[in-house]
């Protein structure tokens, strides 16, 4: 499938974990301002693939990456690529929410602060705006100074989303962001994704097929380190072309 204006373009990407060939010759174009989901069984490499987008494998000695990941046409694995500015363009939501060990306010303000924003009033505005964006403002506006760890896990995940949005990224990466949440919080996060795709490109890793169907425009089926099939959500989930995809999504209907 070809995408007219890809936001991220992965070209001949191979990733080795020690001797293990984890990602095999990946080629995929992630469309701009859409939700793209990676589905597949546990251990198929979908999270590994997601983490290549903001170079989170950099700190492990065993991981070797070959190939290109183009972000707005520029290879992020280029020797001269500046990793902090690449990461700034992408907000990450992990499986379990992990607030920074600070107050609610400081969690949001941390990103803008390290990127040079010092003005108190501006920071106040940023904190309020992004907490409102994730519908957390009414719940926390009277206790901004209290530790983020006191929030419920669903609130923490929304805080982490707001924290990511506060550095004004272009892309949101979600690594099974609802797997630790209860149904109510899951629904909230999914609704947010549908709102946010107006402004952001969203890449989601999920093992819940129903979630993939609810929120995404495109779905890629990853199996054993390879992208088996990639296409519009309905097409891939309802009329898969490949035998492997058919077998996998069957579990979705039966």
């Amino acid at each position, binding site marked *: 499938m070809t995408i007219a204006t890809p936001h991220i373009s992965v070209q001949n990407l191979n990733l080795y974990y020690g001797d293990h060939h984890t990602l095999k010759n990946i080629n995929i174009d992630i469309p701009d301002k859409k939700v793209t989901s990676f589905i597949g069984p546990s251990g198929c490499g979908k999270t590994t693939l997601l983490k290549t987008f903001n170079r989170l494998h950099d700190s492990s000695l065993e991981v070797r990456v070959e190939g290109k990941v183009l972000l707005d046409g520029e290879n992020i694995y280029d020797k001269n690529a500046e990793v902090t500015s690449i990461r700034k363009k992408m907000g*990450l939501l992990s499986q379990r929410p992990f607030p920074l060990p600070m107050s609610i306010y400081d969690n949001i303000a941390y990103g803008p602060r390290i990127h040079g924003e010092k003005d108190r009033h501006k920071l106040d505005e940023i904190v309020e705006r992004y907490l409102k964006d994730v519908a957390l403002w009414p719940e926390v506006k009277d206790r901004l100074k209290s530790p983020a760890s006191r929030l419920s896990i669903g609130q923490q995940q929304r805080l982490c989303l707001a924290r990511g949005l506060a550095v004004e990224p272009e892309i949101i*990466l979600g690594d099974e962001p609802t797997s630790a949440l209860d149904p109510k919080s899951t629904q909230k996060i999914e609704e947010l994704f549908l709102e946010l795709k107006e402004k952001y490109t969203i890449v989601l890793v999920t093992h819940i097929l129903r979630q993939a169907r609810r929120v995404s425009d495109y779905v890629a089926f990853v199996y054993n380190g390879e992208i088996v099939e990639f296409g519009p959500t309905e097409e891939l989930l309802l009329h898969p072309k490949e035998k492997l995809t058919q077998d996998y999504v069957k579990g979705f209907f039966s």
Partner: protein
Amino acid sequence: MKWKKIEEQFFKALMILSTVVIVASFFLIVGTIVSKGLPSLSWEMLSEIPTGDFYMGGEGGILNSIVGSLYIAAGSSLLALLISLPIVIYINVYLKKSSWMGNLTRLGYDVLFGMPSIVYGAFGFTLMIYLGMKASLLGGIIAVTLLIIPIMVRTMDEVVRSVPKELFEASYSLGATRYETAFVLLKQVAPGIFTAILLAFGRGIGDVASVMFTAGFSNDLPQSLQDPASTLPLAVFNQLSSPVEEVQARAYGAALILTIVVLLISISARMMSKRLSKNKI
């Protein structure tokens, strides 16, 4: 079925026994020091320096040793912290996981951790001769610093290694540099860092062998880093080796003071540590 029950009972009894042994030894030690030391404890002992024939039963106190011990323990803890913290941050934040440099550093401090303190004393002594220094407060601080760096690095390293990698990923994915991430990390592990400092301080204030040759001995209060200084463990040692019974009794008084100082620092550090862990995830 019956056998399983006996097995369970047997090991439970064994565990209770070891717990009792530990708790009982603690009370026995503290009890001995208090009962023997309390009678000889006086304001004079806390507030005065020893007179010339103090160790033969003369007038005076051990203020010199109290002050010397606090100076050496505080000075070396501070110095060791300034050296240990960058090491821990470097091997955990800047080096990749299981890199040879990190492994070598860990092997190094593990070896140093097991080294008897007299070796540090001897090494410090050699170093001082080489530098042309006399036995002094500074010499003692340097020797004790060398002694407690491995303790600090090891304790801090263990705390930092237990931090989930999600914390690093969260900070990195906001575009933070490793240097900025180190500060977030410090917020998370602040209570652990505090425990490490406390452990090192406790070891530093109680050690004799490392300061015996390096800090020297003096009946006066040290006025500068170049002055020799006495320490509490040394005061205990000197008084215990006196032939005069009254002086021997005073040794327990000194031991009691040492115990109280360590206890006070331990308790206040615990309270501080609680406050620091407020934001911990």
